[in-house]
């Protein structure tokens, strides 16, 4: 039996009227996006799952505050960014320590191999996490969710100009942090 497709607006309206099934469908649709955003924000899979669940619980509790004229995804992402930031503050275990672990467990044989792929990933992740929350949120939504500046502005409730300045700041900060390490290796690989 085929189930007729229900629009997101219809699902949101039903969820606002208390239908948990409709809300579950919204969770299913947006789970991946929210998990991705919170993971990029906090860099830890377990914290990300907790933050994503918290995001949807907060969305359910405050669904009546959501206005149908705006993007539901953007509204969810705003909650997700806040949930990830709060969760990170509560949990003190943040990814950067993983780099030291990796270096101990997986030493490279030759001096020419500066970093393994895993180590490089960990370094980049560490650099992302070292950014201020506000800049990191803009960077994550742009780089990993491919959102336009206007969508980011809408999601984070900030002006487009602020999106641009935060993104410039984030990228500049990342380049400075990675310039002396990962960038050199990437350049070497391309030569």
């Amino acid at each position: 039996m085929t189930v007729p497709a229900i629009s997101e607006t219809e699902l949101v309206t039903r969820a606002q009227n208390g239908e948990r099934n409709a809300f579950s469908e919204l969770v299913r649709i947006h789970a991946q996006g929210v998990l991705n955003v919170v993971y990029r924000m906090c860099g830890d899979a377990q914290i990300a799952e907790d933050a994503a669940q918290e995001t949807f619980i907060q969305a359910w509790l405050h669904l009546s505050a959501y206005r149908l004229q705006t993007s539901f995804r953007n509204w969810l992402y705003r909650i997700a960014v806040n949930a990830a930031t709060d969760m990170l503050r509560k949990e003190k275990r943040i990814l950067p320590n993983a780099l030291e672990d990796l270096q101990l467990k997986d030493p490279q044989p030759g001096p020419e191999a500066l970093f393994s792929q895993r180590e490089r990933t960990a370094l980049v992740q560490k650099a992302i996490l070292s950014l201020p929350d506000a800049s990191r949120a803009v960077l994550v939504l742009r780089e990993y969710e491919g959102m336009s500046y206007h969508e980011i502005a809408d999601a984070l409730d900030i002006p487009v100009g602020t999106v641009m300045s935060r993104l410039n700041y984030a990228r500049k900060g990342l380049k400075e942090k990675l310039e002396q390490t990962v960038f050199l290796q990437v350049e070497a690989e391309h030569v």
Partner: protein
Amino acid sequence: MSNKHVTEWLNAYLDGELNSRQLQHVEAHLTECQVCQAELESLERLSSLLQEVPAPEFTSPERFAAQVNLRLPHERAATSEKKAFEIGWWMIPVGLLGTWIFIGTSFFVSDILSVANNLGVLAGASDWLVFDSASQADWSAALGQFGFLSGNSLDWAAATEAFTRTSLLEITLQVSIALLYLSWLAIWWARRRRQGHGQLLEG
């Protein structure tokens, strides 16, 4: 303007967020400025480096949705508007009941005063409060003077008018209140049925 570096526009250029005029300007500058070209390449390198960071394998969306569903509280935090609406909603029957009691009491007191007045207990002190038969029949008497009513018809008209002025008013008010209450009850029942239907679907 072409001589000035466009580094501040390179992020927006990379993200495809420049308007056509800005785009033309940046592209023209990039063809002749190695500093800005290097900066753009550096930004592109950073972007591809960021894409290298993989996301872990998360729980499937279906399983995740089921986990969230288990944690969803049954009662939703009501907003202040919703709370105000709920309070107002339950004040409707309370208000109707209060009005009904007030009207019933007023007419009951009026009847008692009317009887007392007719018996002469109040000695005319409460004329302004009650509808005495003389004032009730004023309009009928006026009609009688013009020959519209006469004899028994006049008495009948006076009695009808007294009924119209007192009992009919009371009945009209009470029926209105009853209708309003029944409407509220019907809406309440419909809302409850809809909520029950929602819970049934969830189960």
